[in-house]
């Protein structure tokens, strides 16, 4: 099994119907200025921009193997997620999974995750979370399944329809309050990887820990993230997608948009609320409104990339 779980699905154009979008807002990035607009309005505005026919979907933090009070049935909520995706009128071109595929990186948990996600019959590009690293130090089991075509400790890039996707690994060494780090070798690779690209190439970054200092007191950041972002400063559109936070958090800085996705397994508290980051127990009827996925549309001109976050239930 290589980095892409499954391949060979035809592209079917833009995701026109948001299906279970519910209360999700659609964010656009235009000329470096972000705007959040209602879904209806955003779809109307989207008609004025040139579609390049690329849409993809982000899922994150499936935590297969977790079975504590915050969600004793993470397989169940992943199955619901998969059913929602399969029910979309237009399938995404591919899926990105921003880590913590499993809870403890056991062979059984990886098997279950692969089996369930395989039912999507879509290509999936993975990066690992710290929970996918055995004993927080051994990435080999993850790499053997998902990282065969990767460089170094598992980083990689690929291009789809003129968009350059970069998968970064920031879960192998921790600093301060548990922030992730990329390391000199990966930064050197990144510099080289983007050197040949024109500044107009849309960049999509995938990482598990946020590359921006979302809340360093809880380790929600990447110690050398600023160095990575400095290498990408010349690009007109940079979208950084991460997991780990188990809730939607966004920030826009210049031409860069940062987006932390929901988990499909359990929510976590807002930054700084409560004793620390960890599973948040909510009434069961509220759980599905705090889990979900993000759909992303790539357009040119008016709105290079739009993100819609969709809970499993409104």
């Amino acid at each position: 099994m290589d980095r892409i779980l499954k391949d060979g699905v035809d592209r079917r154009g833009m995701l026109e119907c948001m299906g279970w979008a519910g209360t999700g807002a659609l964010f656009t990035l235009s000329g470096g200025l972000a705007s959040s607009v209602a879904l209806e309005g955003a779809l109307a505005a989207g008609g004025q921009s040139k579609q390049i026919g690329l849409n993809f979907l982000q899922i994150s933090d499936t935590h297969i193997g977790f079975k504590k009070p915050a969600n004793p049935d993470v397989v169940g909520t992943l199955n619901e997620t998969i059913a929602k995706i399969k029910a979309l009128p237009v399938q995404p071109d591919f899926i990105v999974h921003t880590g913590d595929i499993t809870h403890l990186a056991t062979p059984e948990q990886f098997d279950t995750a692969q089996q369930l996600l395989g039912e999507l019959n879509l290509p999936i590009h993975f990066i690992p979370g710290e929970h996918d690293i055995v004993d927080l130090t051994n990435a080999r089991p993850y790499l053997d399944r998902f990282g065969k075509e990767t460089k170094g400790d598992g980083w990689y890039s690929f291009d789809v329809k003129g968009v350059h996707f970069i998968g970064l690994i920031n879960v192998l060494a921790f600093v301060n309050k548990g922030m992730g780090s990329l390391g000199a070798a990966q930064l050197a690779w990144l510099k080289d990887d983007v050197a040949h690209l024109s500044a107009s190439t849309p960049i999509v970054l995938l990482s598990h820990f946020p590359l921006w200092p979302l809340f360093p007191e809880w380790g929600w950041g990447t110690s050398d993230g600023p160095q990575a972002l400095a290498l990408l400063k010349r690009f007109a559109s940079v979208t950084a997608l991460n997991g780990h936070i188990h809730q939607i958090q966004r920030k826009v800085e210049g031409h860069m948009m940062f987006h932390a996705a929901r988990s499909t397994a359990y929510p976590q508290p807002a930054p700084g609320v409560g004793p620390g980051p960890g599973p948040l127990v909510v009434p069961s009827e509220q759980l599905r409104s705090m889990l979900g996925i993000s759909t992303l549309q790539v357009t040119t001109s008016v709105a290079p990339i739009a993100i819609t976050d969709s809970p499993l239930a409104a």
Partner: protein
Amino acid sequence: MIKFAKPAFAGTALLCLALTPALARRAHAQAMPKGDPALGKTLYQACMGCHSVDENDIGPKHRGVVGRKAGIVPGYNYSVAVKNSGIIWTPEKLNLWLTNPQKLVPGAKMFFSVANPKQRADIIAYLGTQK
């Protein structure tokens, strides 16, 4: 934090010197707020990304942790740093651990910390009930 300047012990310097070890122990204990195990049980949810009471996870299981020697739970793969720390997990040590685990045991796997002293005490009080 160890605070020696307690009003109850503001006696003569001679008395203070004579009682220094006992005072230190008592002052150390007093530096921790009294924990509420019921509140701690709720706060413990935050620990459950990596721990549980009865199963090893990212971190070792917690049943019996208060008073236990560090690094001895069967079936859990400890860092060398914790295994060799020689720590006994008294409430005071757990308080230091939860304040900044990397300061207490550099090289430990755990980075998670709890900034609020009362919340730390509550969590430790809860762990104390899980014998």
